[in-house]
């Protein structure tokens, strides 16, 4: 317990320095600013803003990134509520009741309860990270290569199960990502693989490059042909009355608590992350409500629970990243990219060798949440006005901003061209209903998986059964297999089939 307070105090000591507070504030502000743009989700926001943190010292950069992340998440919720455009997958559920509330002129309370719920969830999750961080690091030390490999398989299966649409296609995307990660030098032999003597490819495909291509550029291209202008359904009423009433608070509070608990648990699991947490929380609320028919017609619980859950999950998903070095979702994968750029290899060692970095980041997450409340409640009016910027002016700006951003990573024009090419690949993937998120996850986990697979097989002298004979690894593999079976079972797939029928008709 003393350890816990010591750690938190250390963290606050780092995070509360004026410069870091500033960075956190700027990050949260810019993150919200970009995240509130329709069509630009959390991943794209973080990918786009990644370069602006390169010039900073590592701690500052990570703190700012944490701010950007939370800002982007909250920005996504804002557009869900105000204009029924989810900025990202995690806030899709929020649109169901949030936009209905906005239509009834209750956008203020909806936005406020989303912010309050997120803040509450953030507080709980911060403590949870501080409590669980150290023990989980010890557990991580018991992990051999076989366990790591199995855990990553489990994480990837999670990502597959949660992806929209066809299971098979999601698996294919992961494998495509794994294959892309093979480009560049081999870790052990140094042999150049599939690089075609292009010097810029010797280090492999840049993660930010691919992410910006398949999310940023592809999204822009797609919005252009979809006629994004027509999708905008602005809430014309002026937002009046910001704060929720006492009754709202009483209704929402239990939902916030349930959402927080659910989100925290799901966030820790690799691959779980914020998306499933928000869906699960919404489903739970609807199940236990006395009058489920209120949902979808502006029930405040329908905003409070998923928003709390996705924030709690977003926060606790730092746990597998910091303790095991395994990014549980695509955004965390970007964080790994950022860390690597600053020369930090995430994993148990970071916790021990650079405690001020880890704890500084954890506490700054909490501060980031606080900043979000401070920034967003008064600024709602401005966000709405930003949404009125016509897309014909917005998209060239995004193109230029992305291009400069990618160029600034390595000062390499080739990277910009590559990102453009991946933009076209991403456009193609969208057209064929392939999800780009699993691809990104596969790409990040690829080198780690290969390394651990090689080591595990080397230690076991080529015996593949090592993955099921070591108990911890066997449990993880069984979990992965179980998940896959569950996902294929018709009951769980019902919803998917419904979607399919609709698209055919």
């Amino acid at each position: 317990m003393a350890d816990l307070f010591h750690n938190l105090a250390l963290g606050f000591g780092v995070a509360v320095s004026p410069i870091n507070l500033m960075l956190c504030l700027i990050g949260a502000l810019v993150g919200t600013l970009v995240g509130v743009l329709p069509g630009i989700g959390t991943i794209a926001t973080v990918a786009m803003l990644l370069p602006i943190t390169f010039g900073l010292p590592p701690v500052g950069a990570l703190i700012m990134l944490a701010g950007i992340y939370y800002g982007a998440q909250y920005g996504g919720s804002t557009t869900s509520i105000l204009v029924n455009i989810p900025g990202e997958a995690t806030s899709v559920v929020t649109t169901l009741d949030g936009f209905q509330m906005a239509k009834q002129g209750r956008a203020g309370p909806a936005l406020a309860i989303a912010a309050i719920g997120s803040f509450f969830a953030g507080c709980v999750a911060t403590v949870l990270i501080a409590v669980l961080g150290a023990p989980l690091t010890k557990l991580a030390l018991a992990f051999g290569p076989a366990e790591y490999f199995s855990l990553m398989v489990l994480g990837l299966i999670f990502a597959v199960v949660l992806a929209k649409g066809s299971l098979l296609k999601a698996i294919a995307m992961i494998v495509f990502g794994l294959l892309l990660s093979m480009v560049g030098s081999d870790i052990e032999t140094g042999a150049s693989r599939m690089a075609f003597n292009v010097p810029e490819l010797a280090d492999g495909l840049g993660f930010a490059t691919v992410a910006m291509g398949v999310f940023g550029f592809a999204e822009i291209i797609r919005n252009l042909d979809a006629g994004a202008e027509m999708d905008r359904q602005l809430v014309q009423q002026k937002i009046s009355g910001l704060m929720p009433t006492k009754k709202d608070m009483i209704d929402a509070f239990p939902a916030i608590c349930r959402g927080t608990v659910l989100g925290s648990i799901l966030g820790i699991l690799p691959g779980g992350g914020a998306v499933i947490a928000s869906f699960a929380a919404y489903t739970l609320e609807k199940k236990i409500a006395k009058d489920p028919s209120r949902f979808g017609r502006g029930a405040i619980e329908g905003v409070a629970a998923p928003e709390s859950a996705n924030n709690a999950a977003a926060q606790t998903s730092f746990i597998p990243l910091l303790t095991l070095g395994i990014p549980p979702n695509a955004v965390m994968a970007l964080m790994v990219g950022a860390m690597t750029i600053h020369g930090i290899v995430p994993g148990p060692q970071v916790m021990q060798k650079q405690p001020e970095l880890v704890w500084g980041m954890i506490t700054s997450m909490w501060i980031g949440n606080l900043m979000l409340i401070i920034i967003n409640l008064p600024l709602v009016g401005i966000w709405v006005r930003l949404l009125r910027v016509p897309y014909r002016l917005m998209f060239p700006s995004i193109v230029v901003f992305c291009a400069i951003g990618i160029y600034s990573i390595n000062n390499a024009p080739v990277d910009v061209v590559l990102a453009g090419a991946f933009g076209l690949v991403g456009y193609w993937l969208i057209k064929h209903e392939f999800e780009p998120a699993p691809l990104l996850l596969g790409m990040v986990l690829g080198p780690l998986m290969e390394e651990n697979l090689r080591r595990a097989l080397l230690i076991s002298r080529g015996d593949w059964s090592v993955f099921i004979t070591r108990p911890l690894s066997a449990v993880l593999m069984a979990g992965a297999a179980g998940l896959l079976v569950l996902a294929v079972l018709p009951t769980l797939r019902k919803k998917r089939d419904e979607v399919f029928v609709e698209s055919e008709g």
Partner: protein
Amino acid sequence: MSDTPSAGAGKSITPKWIRGPQDFVGGLALMAVALFALWASSDLQGMHGFSFGAGTAPRMFAVLLLGLGAVIALMGILQDGPHVARYAWRGPLFVSLAILCFAVAIRPLGLVVSGLASFLISALGTPETRWVETIIVGICLTIGCALLFPYVLGLPMPLFPRFLVQ
């Protein structure tokens, strides 16, 4: 791998026995990517004894992708599914051109010229563009970026054309 699998582009008429053209074409393209990767990694060393060579993992993943692509394509034949969506040409073309223009021009011509140029080129990507406001916004954005990236964020990049600076 920067090759764009654009095999399905423009193919709106597919034989009747293919019931889900979207998946069919998608699967075929993934198979093409996998075959390309197999070819590209064919010069790498494979397994020796029970330790992996440089080429083992890439080939493993490529074979896996080949199989998955084949199954997806097969499903496209057997199951009813959506048609290949129509590709727009205007957006992708001009956005790609803008990106390409930026990449080519940033070194010799600097941020100001290449930024504005790629802004204007990408604005061609939609018929909605109104030129007066686009040019004004483009200039403002370029000035903003010219201040933001090199000065505020301290990222080194050339601002003006090389022949003017020297």
